[in-house]
């Protein structure tokens, strides 16, 4: 039976049998080699025939001659001896005194996700923002655990924050005021509005409706209140596709009042995540991941109690589940049951609950473990769970004393206005039906696209007399509006925003609006009849009212500099749960074989769809599936077999009146009897990148079941859709790439968990090994900490001008990411079921091998070693033999097969990092350890060195770079500090401390090839509960 058939068949029995044969940990074989399916070939073929969007391949008769010419002309041989084209120097007319040409500057500001602010530190080169990092002073984007000895400190950030730089420069952004689809002017709009305002004023705002997304900006709220005071009858509706309605109702149920939980994972010894992807989803995820990782820094000499333990119970495999020490995959209904069982075990009255499909032992162990760590436990549930589950979880935490000051969970007044957004949108629609809505002003957001299907918002919106839309794009809503006003990007705006804990971050512009966009503030000033007040004044004036006049100037400047306004976080709030929660009866399990629950979740790349036109995010491989440029129905192998569905089969989903067709992607680890579909795709008017990508999950979404659509009928359409993933094979083939073991094993013998299969790790060579003296760069990646969130990949893409190549090119295996996060499925004695394997993440980037195989085979010396241990890549010397890639065992080299960097738009050129060469067609590229940052630091250190007495003239080096002076882009972005970089010859450096011999569980990948990689890994440690571990646990990857 051929590999192909073996991979394609979903015969679990066969797989179980296979696995039964082997003892120890086996890595799981991928279900399908995408490449072997005929439709793939068809796809690729016609991509090449018809021409992918990246490069048109159809030739006119004239170009035929041109081609024949080219074949004779041997493409510009004379290039070697011709002068460069004349270049212009354009200096300032008046140079701002703080600007030093060629030196980057950093500004603190904030961006907003789901309404909540997160701190940013934006790098600006000669007035162009070029790179985004987290602001370490901001609670939502924490910096390193240990303060750096020297150098600039960056905070962590998530992919949305980092990629928002591309969002700002996006040439598809709407660039002009439009009225009825025709170009118009802001002044025209303001005059019209002010006239309208008068009329509205006479009727006290009767008929004026405003629709915003979740708002936490104090300034905007103040403006709104002013507006509502001026027009008492005006109505303010809020709609955010990803809101906190469920949590809110949960809190109501539990405490009788709304309260918002703030989680301190660093205080928790035991964590139970009930369908909550707290490490990568939501505006607080970076903070949460950071705190979570603080409890998992497994280093030599830690005590047993110093590592937290995470139990994850979820339907769809998320980063949290993949990171968990124990994971249980349950369908939504079963999750409800699990929580009840857990509550019951902890002595909370939930009535009679049958264990059903839930593993009783698991519940038992979790309950006991939580009880043992009462007050240091944290049970968290996600927005996707119904209110009563939230309530139960609150009850459990209360019972265990996990609430309260300095406990893992603290409650505060909700940061955003406490209202049921579902209800408020329903009210708006009702009002439209009653013809009450004369003017509807949509301040940001895209309700026509992302309102639940059952409201048929599109139809209603069109009934409104005057429709005004403020948005970044001419999107679905803009298309149906009378007035469309281009919105200024947050990096172009003055504003402010509260983070999840209430802390206010000031938002300041880094560049004048590229497309003269306007902010919500601007628009409101018009309504308030105070037009022309600029954003800065507005925000400043608001804060004058908050900070007493005397030290305002100082405070204001400090707030701008730090990016946060001190002391603005919400005060803690005491809550007590009611004795009992009245629970609905448990919903029945799966009704019929052709019916499944569809789980809707914000997408790990495009969120609720607002990032759909962001090429970086579209091409970013999704954390588990490694899928790019699509969403899909994620389904477990078993359920896929029940439904007779293969990867790419398009299924027809029907839930009452609502239908949707979407392709299937088989994902081991997903709960049976349900499928997951991510929001944010199927955009009709997103832009060149995001339009017509994937299936629009909002078409199934309903106000009464926003996150889980029950009993959806499934039918085959017979069609298939090409799904493209950047990693085709998720089995480790029993190779010791990712190594690890349990905490017990680590404590007992740290080295054992990093042991290699191959005893022959001797470094045999014909030659004397090279002596690496002085500064020697090295990187360590902590596999225990990695949560697979992809922040490193996006940060690298932004820092190193890495191109987006498009779906067709990814399909043929030409993605360009310099650092990728490999994902493997694994089974072991504890997880024998190939339907429910464990997951491993492994970030892979250039290893900067001391014996680099790539260097030896390059005929022109385009890649060679530098004295500080870098594997240099010289693009302008490369002739593109691609031999280096063949000889790279880690396959981290990337090749410009086509002209990927062809400037599509001037704005995108502005975005590029001036310190990194833009690669031309036909050259190889790869991770450089951010050599541009190293060079900058070295030059600085050399200048210091001249006067530094500790450096002698005859010494080995004339500089001394301190630990922390060089921070790679990936390292800076990583929320869990899984990436450590520095000079390994400096014994006090973090990286030296993270290598052998200090960390016995440090290992290099494929060292049996004698490559001597500089990038090494800390083996993954799982804090397994002894009761859930198999009796004999001989770890053997």
């Amino acid at each position: 039976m051929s590999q192909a058939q073996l991979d394609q068949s979903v015969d679990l029995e066969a797989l179980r049998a296979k696995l039964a044969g082997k003892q120890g940990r086996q890595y799981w074989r991928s279900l399908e080699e995408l490449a072997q399916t005929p439709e793939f070939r068809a796809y690729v073929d016609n991509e090449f025939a018809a021409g992918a969007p990246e490069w048109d391949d159809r030739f006119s008769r004239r170009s035929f001659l041109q081609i024949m010419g080219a074949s004779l002309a041997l493409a510009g041989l004379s290039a070697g001896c011709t002068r460069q084209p004349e270049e212009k120097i354009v200096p300032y007319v008046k140079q701002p005194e703080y600007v030093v040409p060629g030196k980057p500057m950093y500004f603190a500001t904030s961006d907003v996700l789901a309404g909540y602010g997160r701190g940013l530190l934006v790098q600006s080169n000669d007035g162009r923002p070029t790179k985004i990092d987290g602001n370490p002073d901001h609670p939502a984007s924490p910096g390193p655990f240990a303060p750096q000895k020297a150098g600039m400190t960056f905070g962590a950030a998530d992919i949305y924050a980092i990629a928002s730089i591309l969002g700002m420069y996006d040439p598809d952004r709407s660039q002009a005021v439009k009225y009825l689809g025709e170009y118009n002017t802001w002044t025209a709009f303001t005059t019209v509005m002010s006239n309208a305002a008068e009329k509205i004023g006479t009727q006290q705002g009767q008929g004026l409706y405003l629709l915003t997304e979740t708002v936490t900006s104090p300034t905007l709220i103040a403006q709104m209140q002013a507006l509502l005071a001026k027009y008492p009858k005006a109505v303010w509706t809020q709609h955010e596709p990803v809101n906190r309605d469920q949590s809110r109702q949960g809190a109501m149920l539990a405490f009788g009042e709304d309260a918002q939980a703030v989680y301190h994972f660093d205080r928790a010894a035991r964590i139970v995540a009930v369908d909550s992807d707290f490490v990568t989803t939501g505006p607080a995820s970076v903070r949460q991941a950071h705190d979570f990782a603080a409890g998992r820094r497994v280093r030599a000499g830690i005590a047993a109690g110093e590592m937290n333990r995470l139990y994850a119970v979820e339907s769809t495999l998320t980063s949290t589940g993949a990171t968990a020490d124990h994971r249980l995959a349950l369908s939504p209904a079963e999750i409800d049951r699990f929580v009840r069982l857990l509550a019951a075990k902890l002595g909370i009255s939930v009535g009679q609950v049958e264990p059903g499909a839930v593993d009783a032992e698991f519940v038992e162990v979790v309950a006991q473990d939580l009880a043992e760590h009462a007050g240091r436990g944290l049970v968290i549930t996600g927005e996707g769970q119904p209110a009563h589950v939230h309530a139960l979880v609150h009850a459990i935490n209360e019972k265990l004393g996990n609430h309260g000051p300095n406990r893992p969970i603290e409650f505060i007044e909700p940061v955003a206005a406490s209202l049921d957004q579902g209800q408020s949108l329903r009210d708006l629609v009702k009002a439209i039906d009653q013809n009450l809505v004369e003017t509807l002003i949509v301040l940001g957001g895209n309700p026509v696209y992302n309102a639940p299907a059952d409201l048929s918002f599109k139809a209603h919106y069109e009934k409104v007399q005057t429709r005004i839309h403020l948005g970044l794009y001419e999107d679905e809503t803009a298309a149906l509006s009378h007035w469309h006003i281009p919105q200024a990007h947050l990096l172009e705006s003055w504003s402010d925003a509260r983070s999840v804990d209430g802390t206010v971050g000031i938002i300041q512009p880094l560049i004048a609006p590229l497309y003269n966009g306007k902010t919500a503030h601007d628009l409101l000033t018009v309504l308030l009849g105070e037009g022309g007040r600029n954003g800065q004044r507005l925000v400043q004036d608001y804060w004058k009212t908050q900070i007493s006049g005397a030290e305002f100037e100082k405070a204001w400047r400090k707030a701008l500099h730090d990016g946060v306004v001190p002391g603005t976080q919400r005060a803690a709030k005491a809550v007590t749960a009611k004795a009992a929660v009245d629970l609905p009866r448990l919903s029945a399990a799966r009704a019929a074989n052709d019916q499944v629950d569809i789980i809707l979740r914000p997408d790990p790349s495009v969120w609720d769809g607002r990032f759909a036109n962001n090429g970086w995010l579209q091409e970013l491989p999704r954390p588990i599936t490694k899928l790019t440029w699509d969403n899909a129905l994620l389904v477990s192998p078993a359920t896929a077999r029940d439904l007779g569905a293969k990867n790419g089969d398009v299924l027809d989903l029907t839930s009452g009146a609502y239908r949707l067709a979407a392709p299937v992607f088989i994902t081991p680890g997903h709960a049976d009897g349900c499928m997951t579909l991510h929001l944010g795709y199927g955009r009709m008017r997103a832009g060149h990148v995001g339009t017509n990508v994937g299936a629009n999950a909002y078409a199934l979404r309903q106000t009464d079941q926003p996150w889980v659509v029950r009993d959806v009928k499934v039918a085959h359409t017979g069609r298939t859709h090409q799904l493209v993933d950047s990693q085709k094979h998720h089995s480790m083939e029993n190779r010791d790439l990712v190594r690890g073991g349990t905490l017990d094993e680590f404590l007992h013998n740290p080295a054992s968990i990093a042991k290699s299969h191959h005893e022959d790790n001797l470094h045999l060579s014909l030659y004397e090994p090279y002596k690496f003296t002085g500064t020697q760069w090295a990187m360590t990646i902590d596999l225990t900490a990695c949560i697979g969130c992809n922040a490193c990949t996006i940060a690298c893409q932004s820092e190193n001008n890495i191109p987006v190549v498009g779906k067709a090119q990814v399909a043929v295996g030409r993605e360009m990411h310099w650092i990728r996060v490999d994902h493997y499925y694994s089974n072991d004695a504890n997880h024998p079921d190939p339907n429910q394997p464990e997951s491993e993440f492994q970030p892979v980037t250039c290893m900067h091998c001391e014996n680099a195989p790539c260097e030896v085979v390059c005929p022109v010396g385009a890649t060679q070693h530098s004295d500080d241990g870098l594997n240099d890549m010289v693009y302008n010397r490369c002739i593109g033999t691609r031999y280096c890639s063949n000889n790279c065992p880690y396959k981290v080299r990337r090749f410009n097969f086509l002209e990927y960097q062809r400037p599509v738009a001037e704005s995108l050129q502005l975005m590029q990092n001036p310190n990194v060469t833009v690669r031309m067609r036909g050259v190889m590229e790869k991770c450089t350890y951010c050599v541009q940052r190293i060079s900058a630091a070295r030059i600085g250190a050399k200048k210091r060195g001249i006067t530094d007495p500790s450096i002698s003239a005859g010494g080995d080096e004339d500089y001394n770079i301190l630990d922390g002076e060089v921070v790679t882009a990936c390292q800076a972005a990583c929320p869990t500090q899984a990436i450590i970089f520095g000079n390994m010859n400096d014994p006090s450096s973090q990286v030296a401390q993270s290598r052998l011999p200090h960390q016995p569980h440090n290992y290099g990948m494929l060292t049996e090839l004698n490559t001597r990689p500089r990038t090494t890994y800390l083996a993954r440690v799982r804090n397994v509960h002894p009761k859930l571990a198999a009796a004999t646990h001989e770890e053997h990857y």
Partner: protein
Amino acid sequence: MKRLFTPYTNTIARATALGVPLLVLIAGGFGRMWLDSSYETGVGEAIDQPVPFSHEHHVAGLGIDCRFCHLSAETSSVAGVPATEVCMTCHSQIWTNAQMLQPVRDSFEKGQPIQWVRVNDLPDFVYFDHSIHVAKGVGCAECHGEVHRMPMTWKAQNLHMTWCLDCHRDPEKQLRPKDVVFSTDWFSGARAKLGAEIARENKVNTKGLTNCSTCHR
């Protein structure tokens, strides 16, 4: 029948047999020389500028220091080309209605920058940092030549990689005392000896100076 070849064809035949390879060699040699010639490199060619700015006049004549206009030479990778403002500091007082300065005044009034033509143009994949060279004692003149003799500015060196390497391999000959780094007419008979001292003083160390990543990123 008529004979196919006449006696002198032998001479021709042998001449070609020897001559052709010879010619190829010679042509190659000339080709190589041409690459270094100023025809190819443009060394010594005065370049037209929107304003006929004379370094000769400002440096030799008025003795203005390089850093007065090229502000960031000591602090940043780029030396910086002066903002119109800087020109106007003087030219708002003197030569206020000189015709040749009209573009400067226009620029200042309209806020439109002057578009100078780059004289020393390194390829985009080469990253040169002025500050470190200045700090280590490499004088401006080492690369920019005797600017005080240039009525119109021209390229003083061919800027070939080989030329960069010469200095990166053995910098001492190009080093000079701190006080004369910005002087373009400084001369010393004993540079070799002097250079060695300065190298010690500034802790010049050639380790890694010929690594690719020192100049290419």
